[in-house]
């Protein structure tokens, strides 16, 4: 066996762990198929949620290099840029400050020169320094001032209208409280999302102070010219000097000036990142809420699907041949601490969710029992061996909260393309979030509800 074969086989085994091989179906506004690691589980609705069926809200702003937290109002004022950190205009890496000693004339005595420290910015990745860039002028500030004025004027008009015609059945959107919330959080509530043509409210905050006379700024509209400057004569013959020009990405990162030459690049302040929280759209409960501190990666609320739903993973795939039955080994992991019963059901003919499968699958008929996840089990030497009667034809192995089981696959489609199978997995879920209702029989344990998920597996191509 050659080394190349060993390498290919190793890569194939490693790729089985890739999450995109096993997809769970989410019933939302759109039917989304996604790996379990990227899904959330709303335990109030008892349903899977994907990133597209939750609402995203901005939690806090922070700078990715100095990790400084910034309140949202201040962030809006600074155009979502950090005051202290800079980005390299060449490669967008973070710039670091370096010092050199330059001889400079002393202020008292111009004839003597002393070594003074001069600071400059340097990039560790592409070796760009701020001494390479040129100073820039204020070309676009006039436009910005004009738009600020426009936004301010529109806001004043709206406020005037509100105060003049205050009616009791005014929709909630125009109450003072909501406006205040909107200004604090930007476009947080759905009602205030920008519609094309609506007045620009985002710039309204950055305005002149009251009492200042508003200067009328006239902007000359861009005029279309008939005559254009002719191209230089050597346009076609001059050799192109690639390092001298800027790439499109470098140019567009500075939309004010869009420098064409690399010597005109200027460092920009670093863009702030946000921490976002996710909210289920149906029950308005938070699914994911990070901590406020930028240095902390933990979550205050983290309702991810992998900690509630049993996860199916592919363990090994034999050579699949057209219309020949093969056994595929899958594993099922139980994330919760109590015993879970899982039943697998093959999809029926004409199942509307079963659109991708290219093979027939025979799943084990019996119910699979998964032990609870016991965090202390790995340290406990005297753990009692779990006593589950496992059918060796179905269950290959059992290890704490994980079992390996076989499914039989018969590929139905010949030629190129991956073999995909799908089935439904039905498991019991104990809802610990639901309030404990005093039941009449005095039964303290929470009731289990049965959840069904549609799972699709990608088993790779047919064997050649």
């Amino acid at each position: 066996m050659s080394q190349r074969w060993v390498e290919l086989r190793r890569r194939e085994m490693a790729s089985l762990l890739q999450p995109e091989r096993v997809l769970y179906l989410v019933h939302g506004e759109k039917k989304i198929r996604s790996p379990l690691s990227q899904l959330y589980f709303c335990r109030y609705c008892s349903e899977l949620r994907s990133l597209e069926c939750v609402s995203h809200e901005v939690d806090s702003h922070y700078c990715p290099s100095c990790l400084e937290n910034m309140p949202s109002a201040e962030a809006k004022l600074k155009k979502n840029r950090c005051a202290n950190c800079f980005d390299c205009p060449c490669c967008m890496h973070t710039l670091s400050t370096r010092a050199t000693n330059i001889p400079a004339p002393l202020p008292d005595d111009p004839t003597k020169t002393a070594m003074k420290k001069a600071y400059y910015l340097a990039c560790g990745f592409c070796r760009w320094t701020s001494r390479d860039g040129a100073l820039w002028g204020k070309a676009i500030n006039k436009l910005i001032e004009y738009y600020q004025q426009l936004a301010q004027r529109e806001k004043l008009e709206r406020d005037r209208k509100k105060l003049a015609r205050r009616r009791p059945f005014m929709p909630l959107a125009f109450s003072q409280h909501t406006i205040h919330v909107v200004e604090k959080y930007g476009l947080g509530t759905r009602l205030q999302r920008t519609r094309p043509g609506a007045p620009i409210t985002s710039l309204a905050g950055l305005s002149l102070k009251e009492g200042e006379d508003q200067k009328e700024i006239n902007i000359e509209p861009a005029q279309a010219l008939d005559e254009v400057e002719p191209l230089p004569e050597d346009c076609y013959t001059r050799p192109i000097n690639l390092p001298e020009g800027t790439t499109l990405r470098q140019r567009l990162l500075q939309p004010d000036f869009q420098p064409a030459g690399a010597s005109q690049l200027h460092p920009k302040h670093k863009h702030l990142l946000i921490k976002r929280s996710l909210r289920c759209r149906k029950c308005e409960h938070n699914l994911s809420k990070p901590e406020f501190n930028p240095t902390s990666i933990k979550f205050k609320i983290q309702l991810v699907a992998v900690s509630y739903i049993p996860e199916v993973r592919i363990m090994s795939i034999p050579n699949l041949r057209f219309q020949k039955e093969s056994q595929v080994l899958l594993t099922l992991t139980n994330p919760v601490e109590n015993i879970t019963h899982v039943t697998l059901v093959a999809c029926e003919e004409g199942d509307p969710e079963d659109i991708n499968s290219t093979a027939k699958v025979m799943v084990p008929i019996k119910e699979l029992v998964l032990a609870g996840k016991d965090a202390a089990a790995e340290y406990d030497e005297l753990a009692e061996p779990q006593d589950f009667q496992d059918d060796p034809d179905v269950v290959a192995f059992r290890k704490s909260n994980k079992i390996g089981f076989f499914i039989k696959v018969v590929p139905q489609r010949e030629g190129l393309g991956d073999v995909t199978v799908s089935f439904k997995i039905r498991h019991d879920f104990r809802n610990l979030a639901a309030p404990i209702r005093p039941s009449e029989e005095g039964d303290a344990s929470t009731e289990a509800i049965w959840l069904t998920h549609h799972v699709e597996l990608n088993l790779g191509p047919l064997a050649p």
Partner: protein
Amino acid sequence: QAQKTNPSAKIAAGAVVCVESEIRGDVTIGPRTVVHPKARIIAEAGPIIIGEGNLIEEQALIINSYPENIMPDTEGVEPKSMTIGINNVFEVGCVSQALQIGDNNVIESKADLGRNVVLTSGCIVGACCQVNTCEVIPENTVIYGSNSMRRLQTERPQPQTLQLDFLMKILPNYHHMKKAVKVTSTPVRNQAVTH
């Protein structure tokens, strides 16, 4: 201790070459050059001449090898010598097969230089960048990024004099050094014993 004796390696006085480095073939190392342990300088298809003030870090590989389509036994193949100028830095894990390297260049970690590249002066080849074109890299070029983008720098990288001085002082404290060998002079070993 068994020291790998390499009779054809010419190490100038003032060079600091660790014993754990592998030097094979006809290699000349200039003064004030530091060769770290586990660096490899292999002169297969011709001699290698390294100037002064260079810094060759661990696991760097400088190799003058045969071009791919020529077998070692082919007749009529003249040995081409590889010249490396002064004040260059070969960072950890880089591979250099370039036949001509000028001065004040920096070849960053895991960079790969092909045989037909000619580095002039003040160039910086970024980490993990592969340069195997058949061209002369202009002065003060910086090659960086996963696509090996290029740009011109206005100034050349500073020679690492501070680092060289530090290493020349500290390395002998922790490693055995290869003795300086000159072709014409008497063996240094006798001289060391008499001191």
